[in-house]
């Protein structure tokens, strides 16, 4: 059972379902307040979705100065797994822990809908329970989700297999190369705009997002990928 620190900034709004999804996958998740400086022996750090500090300046631009971010950076540099979901992805880019950045959607509007994704890299701590090339459906809900990076960075991301998820079919926000999620060169820091934590149970219409969290526990599981019930089966928590 991995200890999963879910960092709460003022304006974070997806921390509860993120903790639920980690708990449902068999992890031991807990909240860490942004004013804290200690991750409390975390194995894994997740920055959840929301609008940290209202995102009035630029998404994630203020949150990266929060006291806890020093500890997050230290954890990341030591090779510890870090996942940024939506606003968390934006914060990791602003903090320089992931390459590139996220700007206004190409149609200048917020978009909330299920999208089709291809899992392009399964050698990360958050995707090892998927099959490479597998297509899944999970929701997006963002206004600033268009991934951009300069040409050399993009070339390196594609060459090194650092594009972790890519939109299939319709590109909902104009992201360069249809990029929905990336990882750093060391592959331990991962960011994704869609919300796997919001689609992890049949009652919600699907569970394609659940294996992001099962991936964290995969080494303890008897089966790799595939059968969720082999690992989870937890009752839904509050």
């Amino acid at each position, binding site marked *: 059972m991995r200890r999963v620190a879910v960092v709460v900034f*003022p*304006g974070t*709004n*997806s921390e*509860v*379902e993120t903790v*639920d*999804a980690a708990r449902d996958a068999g992890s031991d998740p807990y909240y860490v307040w942004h004013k804290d400086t200690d991750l409390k022996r975390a194995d894994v750090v997740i920055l959840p*979705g*929301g*609008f940290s*500090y*209202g*995102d*009035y300046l630029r998404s994630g631009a203020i949150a990266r100065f929060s006291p806890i971010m020093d500890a997050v950076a230290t954890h990341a540099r030591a090779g510890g797994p870090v996942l940024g979901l939506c606003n968390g992805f934006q914060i990791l880019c602003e903090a320089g822990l992931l390459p590139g950045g996220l700007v206004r959607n190409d*149609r200048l*509007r*917020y*978009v*909330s*809908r*299920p999208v*089709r994704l291809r899992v392009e890299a399964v050698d990360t701590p958050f995707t090892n329970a998927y099959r490479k090339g597998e297509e899944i*459906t999970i*929701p997006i*809900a963002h*206004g600033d989700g268009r991934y951009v990076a300069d040409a050399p960075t993009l070339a390196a991301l594609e060459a090194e297999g650092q594009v972790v998820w890519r939109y299939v079919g319709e590109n909902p926000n104009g992201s360069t190369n249809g990029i929905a999620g990336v990882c750093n060169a060391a592959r331990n820091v991962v960011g994704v705009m869609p*919300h796997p*934590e*919001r*689609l*992890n*149970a*049949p*009652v*919600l*219409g699907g569970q394609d997002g659940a294996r992001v969290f099962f991936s964290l526990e995969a080494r303890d599981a008897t089966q790799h990928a595939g059968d969720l019930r082999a690992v989870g089966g937890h*009752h*839904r*928590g*509050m």
Partner: protein
Amino acid sequence: MSELGIFSALWSEHCSYKHSRPILKTFPTTGPQVVQGPGENAGVLRLPDGWAVAFKIESHNHPSAVEPYQGAATGAGGILRDVFTMGARPVAMLNSLRFGSLDEARNRYLFAGVVKGIGDYGNCVGVPVLGGEVDFAPGYTGNPLVNAMCVGLLKEKDLIRAAAHGVGNVLITMGSSTGRDGIHGASFASEELTAKSEARRPQVQVGDPFTEKLLLEASLELIHSGHIVAIQDMGAAGLTSSSAEMAARGGVGVEIDLSLVPTREAGMTPYEILLSESQERMLVVAKADRVKEVQAIADKWDLTAMPIGRVTDDGMYRCMWKDQVVVEIPGRQLVEDCPVYYPEAREGESVAALRSALPASHFPLPAPGEALLRLLDDPSVASKRWVYEQYDSSVQARAVIHPGGDAGVLRVQGTDFGIAVTTDCNSRYLALDPYEGGKGAVAEAARNIACTGARPLGITDCLNFGSPERPEVFFQFREACRGISDACKAFDTPVTGGNVSFYNESPTGAVDPTPVIGMVGLLEEADHAVPSHARSAGDVVLVAGDTKSEMGGSAYWEVIQGFRGGIPPRVDLVAARNLVDFLVNAARGRMLKSAHDASAGGIGIALAEMAIGGPYQQAGMGLTIDLSNYAPSLSDADLLFSESHNRAVLTVSPDRVAAVTKLAAEHGVSLYPAGTIGAPGTLVSIKLRDGAVSYPVGQLREVYFGSIPRRMGD
């Protein structure tokens, strides 16, 4: 001067309900499920396992007419605060919107601004939008309607009411500081819109959803901490209204030192401080010895909490400026001695004439298939995907049925049950017959809830009308309320509160009467929620309920024949209740694959939506229907487009048809086997008595999903 301003605000229609109170008293408000009826910030109904649901709908029409983005955003903010001040966590929002035709640039501007305002606010706070409705009609040009509903969850034992009590307890303001925005917004909301209303833009407040999110978390933490006895939003009429109402509810006096209220700018007068409607401010009554603890919680969320006064035992509403008394009024006088009016009510003469009129018969009518396409392209009928995809519906991981179906359904984590939510009102019917239209709004809401398998529990209402000082408007109001009341009794759905919005008038006249019904229902097992769209090829399509020739007020007459008139469909409340009970029991018996209410556009639109619907990313389903033996006396147009109440289209797997048929007979509901579902992406064909309809489902989808984006220039 300050005292006069206070009376002007608190005795405004918006705050006092001086024209509506005697009528509102006739609503049914009790029942075993009612925890809190009208009179509080929100109504509360009992759910299983110690849970309860708090909900309320409110208008923000006038601010949105002059400043759509901020007007709508602050409307969303206000209704969120009404719900979380009951101790409930907001878990769903719905929006009921009305605009003039999208052919006019001004209406497109208002529509786009309102939708973005609601979206930017709610998305940031993190509350999913799970339903609502948008309608376009000429009567709303110049006076759009923006009604926002919020639904919150709480444990019944954690309910907190906004009544000040405990002499010596301390009044604390928490949140944003007080500025000069929105002064006399409540009075602005209580007059007609005119050419000069543009000058009222400074009375529209500015929203800050980030501060709202902090307030939400801090307020819930305070309520659970036990350090406070009451909490209320400083909404319409600001500090004045919140403090006077809390004192009146608790039967106590209060004394406030206005010089202690944190202000945004220097030199604000007591008058301005009392009547400012700056957003994102709360008034908290803390236990006398817990002020420091309250401040510590506020500080954690980076909010200011400033003690400004105390609860007294003399029943006086007293405001000081340091040592000097600036306001001193007996508290009861402010909120209870407000005058009550009994205006004259008389039906407008033109309405009776319109009811007995028929559409002009001299021009040729289109074939049924062409009529179906034109109806699917009408923005009021067409998909609202352009709207709801700007709202986050997946946050909180609660949505079982997302917007786009009959009602939204959300789960309650840690339990098996779910909650169904909807808003409904067909103002075309109300304009012609407010009594039947009022009944119809409740009946349609109940059908929408029941189509998901949920049992209707209760309603909140947002009663949007013109000026009550005009007899024909007050007649509409009185009759609509009588209809709502009768229907609520039939469904056992008490009224738990709501909002009256009068004076919805512009130089072109009053809006159509629009009493929006917000309803919640209980689904015993959330994972058996019934969607509105067809799911599997080979399933049997059944039409439940009876179709009569009821074209008055129909979408067909309006869109195809350019005529708004006739006798609108009547609601048989016994049959309506039977259909609802049948749908709930059929869902409980796992008999239904899908269920979709037939309303505007009739069975034709209901069948088309059943085939089209489902996730946008999928292809839609084929459909083979034969209505040639259904309702033998009706014409093809009536068969497809009559809007008789109490009907739904169902899909059932072939092995459950016998069981459903038996259950329907037990409930006195007629069932007509109409056809079968075809493969994804194939033909939708409907055989009628004389003609037929046949289109690839892809073509129907293109029209239905493309209608609003095309008009908005996407």
